[in-house]
Every structure is written in C-alpha cells, then in structure tokens.
C-alpha cells in the first residue's frame, strides 16, 4: 500500500519534470543572459568596487563589513588562511579579474561547469565580504550561478559543444525547476506584502519609492493604492496566472513591466534585469534558432 503510494507520488514527479519540448533554447538563453547581466553589473560597480572590496581602501574595514553577517564563519577562516600564507594582496588583486574571466568563459560556454562553479565561489567570496551592502540581486545571482553549475547549460551553442561533441539528449526538464522556484518566490512575496496593511492603502508603496532625491512623495494616494493592491495581487496570483495558458502572456508582461518600473523608480537596475531574465527563461517562449524571444 505504502509502496504504491510512494510509487504514484514518484510517477507524478516524473511527469512534472518530463521534457515536453526542447529545453535547449532555455539552457542557452539562461547561460548567456545570466553571465551578461553579471558582467554588466560588476562593470557598472567597478569604479566603486574598491570601496566595498579591497585590502585597504574600503568604506569601513572589510572585517567590519562581514563580522555581523552569517558568512563570518566562512570568510574569517578564508581570510586568516590568506593572511597566514601571505596571499591577501594577491587575492585582492586577482579575485575580481578571475571572476570576470570566469563569467566570460561561462558566456561562451568554455569548460562551462567548472567556470560556473568558479564564478559562483568567487561571487560568494567577493560579494559576501560586504554582505550588509548586498541586496536581492546578489542572492538571485548566487542562485543563478548555482543553476548554471548544476544545469547542463554548456552543452549547446558553446565552445564545449565543439570540443566534447555531446551525444545524449536531455531527459530532464531543468526549466521546470526555475519555473517552480520563481512561482514560490512571487507567491510568498505577495503573501508577505499582503500581510502589511500599507500595501493595501498605498502607504508602503510611498515608503518604498519616496526619497529626498525625487518627487515621488507627491504622487496621488489613489495611484499608490492602485499600484500597491495590483502588486500584491499580481505577485500572490502569479503561479496561477502563469500556469493558465490564456493569462500567461498577460501575467508575464505585467511582471516584466513591474520590474521595469522598479528599475526606473528605485534605480535597482541589476535586480530588475536578473528578474526579467528569470521570467523570460522560465515562461517566455524561447525557440531554437529563432533570433528573438516572444511570449505565448
């Protein structure tokens, strides 16, 4: 009886992760888009990077940046090891260039799995060394690089494909992992916002966007309330709206527009970019050999 139930549960899982259409465009798009976003982001931070990550020139000493984070136990051991072996200066000099090189290798699909792992480890070391200065983007990039490491993203349209001449066909729907992950993230974000009365009367939208540097503080309460309620409902209902075929393209368009607005109004460009990449990778219609991405 129990065996039957377990077996039936497993069969449902097998169906859930079954490949129904080619996932090659997804794997290629994901690899290229994630590495491009990561390269653009680190390049955009480059003039200021020494103030967050360097041996002597940080805003506050490097140890003070991570001492109060959950990464202290890993980073402290790592930096002590570097110090004891006189490698600190070399590490600070090479970490970022090697990280960028790893991302470039990931982009072109050159020894993809190894370079994805290297990029993941360096991203964790570099960015968590200033953990309190991290935000949503940094965590989504870690997740993305982790998926680039575990998914076979380097098997197609890559240098690896030319070198290793892979033969096997994919029999696992990696895209489904991203789809479910994204659905969980939005739904719980919707729950979280829905529990805050401020999202139902516009006050939280005002708090999120009002700044001494802009004039969003004067936006009409009616508009803010509409935006607040719209955001809660869109995020909470995202799994349903994206699952149903008739509403999928509207939900995808709405969520992309939401991220474009976040980029413009809150200047969180990298975060918005990575969320748009995840949405297109998970639910956009990606066609093999097509030059464009369209939604269904």
């Amino acid at each position, binding site marked *: 009886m129990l065996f039957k139930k377990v077996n039936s549960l497993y069969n449902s899982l097998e169906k859930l992760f079954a490949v129904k259409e080619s996932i090659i465009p997804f794997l290629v798009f994901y690899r290229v888009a994630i590495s491009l976003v990561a390269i653009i982001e680190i390049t955009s*931070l480059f003039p200021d990077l020494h*103030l967050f990550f360097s041996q002597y020139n940080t805003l506050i000493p490097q140890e003070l940046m991570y001492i109060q984070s959950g990464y202290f136990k890993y980073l402290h051991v790592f930096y002590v090891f570097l110090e004891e072996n006189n490698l600190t200066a070399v590490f600070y000099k090479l970490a970022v260039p090697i990280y960028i090189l790893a991302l470039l290798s990931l982009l072109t699909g050159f020894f993809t799995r190894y370079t994805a792992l290297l990029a993941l480890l360096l991203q964790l070391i570099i960015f968590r060394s200033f953990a309190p200065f991290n935000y949503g983007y940094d965590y989504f990039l870690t997740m993305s690089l982790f998926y680039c490491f575990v998914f076979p993203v380097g098997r197609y349209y890559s240098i690896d494909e030319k070198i290793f001449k892979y033969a096997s066909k994919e029999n696992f729907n990696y895209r489904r992992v991203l789809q479910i992950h994204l659905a969980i*993230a939005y739904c719980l974000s919707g729950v979280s916002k829905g529990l805050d009365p401020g999202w139902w009367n*516009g006050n939280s939208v005002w708090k999120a966007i009002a*700044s*001494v540097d802009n004039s969003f503080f004067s936006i009409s309460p009616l508009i803010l309330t509409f935006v607040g309620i719209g955001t809660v409902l869109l995020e909470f209902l995202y799994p349903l709206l994206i699952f149903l075929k008739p509403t999928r393209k509207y939900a995808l368009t709405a969520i992309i527009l939401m991220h474009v607005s976040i980029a413009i109004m809150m200047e969180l460009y990298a975060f918005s970019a990575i969320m748009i990449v995840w949405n297109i990778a998970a639910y956009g219609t990606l066609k093999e050999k097509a030059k464009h991405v369209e939604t269904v």
Partner: protein
Amino acid sequence: MKKKIRILLYFSHLLLIFFHASWATFDAYLSFYHDKSVDIPVISLLKQNQHTDFYYVITGINTGYGFYGIHTSTEKYFRAYYLDSTDNVLKTDRYFNLSTSNGISRLEGFASFFSNYVADTDKLIKSDTTSFEDENPKTIRLREHYNFRKDYVAKVLKWYGKNEVKNMPKCDSYKIELLTLVPQDIWQKKKTIKPQLYVVQEGQFPVQ
C-alpha cells in the same frame, strides 16, 4: 536510476526553498506584529542551521522573498559633516566617494541594515532590566552581546568619513548622521509637502 536521483534531488531542493521562504515570511510576521518567535524542533531541523547552512549559502536560497513586504521602511542614508576647530561646517557629504548608482544604492541598503541593527541593539539594551550588580551568566551574556553591538555601531560611524578627513587639513572633527525619511500617512498628508527627516543615530569624532 540516475534520473530518479536527479528528480528527487531537485524536488528536495524546491521543497527546501518553499519551506525556507514560507518560514521566513511567517517568522518575520510574528516577530514584527506580535514580537514573538516560534521554535518548533522538527522545523528547526530544516531551517538554516549548522548542518544545512552550507547548502543554503552555496545555493543562495538563504534569502526571503519579502521584497519590501511585512513592513516596508522609508529611505535611509548617512550624512557626514566635516567641521573645523570652531565647529564651522567645512563640507557635507552623503556619498563617501561613491560615484555609481549601483554603489550608492548599496550604500542606502547598508543604511537600512544599520538602522535595523541600531533598533535591535536598543531593544536588547531595554530588555536588560536587572540591577547593575547582577552577575547572572545570562545577564552577563546579554550585556556582552549588546555592548559588542554598541561598539560595532560606534566603529562603523567612526570609519565613515575617516578616509575623507585625510585630505582636509583644516578639519578638526567630523559628525556622521544616519537619517531616515519620517513615514507619513499618504491619506492625511498634504501632497506638496516634502517628507521630513529624522536622525536615527549620530556620532561626532575628533580627527586623530
């Protein structure tokens, strides 16, 4: 067999994400609205703990997905005043040599983190209601804990601006403020009035 393992591993990974994100939302709600935290032993096994921590860190799933949920806070930022020997302001600064919007956004993110840190430290201090002579190990641990946090707050404020004064020979001291926009009820406030600022924490330091 390989496929079965793969399916089970990814399913477990997704279950962990669902569990962690749900728990983070529930925990944040209880802690903010009811000032409570719940410890359920079975759940603690799956939560980020010494056994699961590495997996959470390496996969990046050690984050909630609140995105300004539960309780949205207003904008926060640091402001420095560089003063001469008669306390005249030589220069004020908000960006501490940061020049990119990416860097400035991160600095504002830190200001928000720091403001929560200051508030939590104050809570810890207020929770110490025993007499000064009390040498109960629990009280001593609590005092060590909040003194460490107070020290951290002072050190962070001191370091901000420390680099800048090197290039200002006339600067005798500097003051760092952590400012927040005062939340307003949008249905009560006048549309055109600019939001007010409030100093959450400040520190003045002599140039050494």
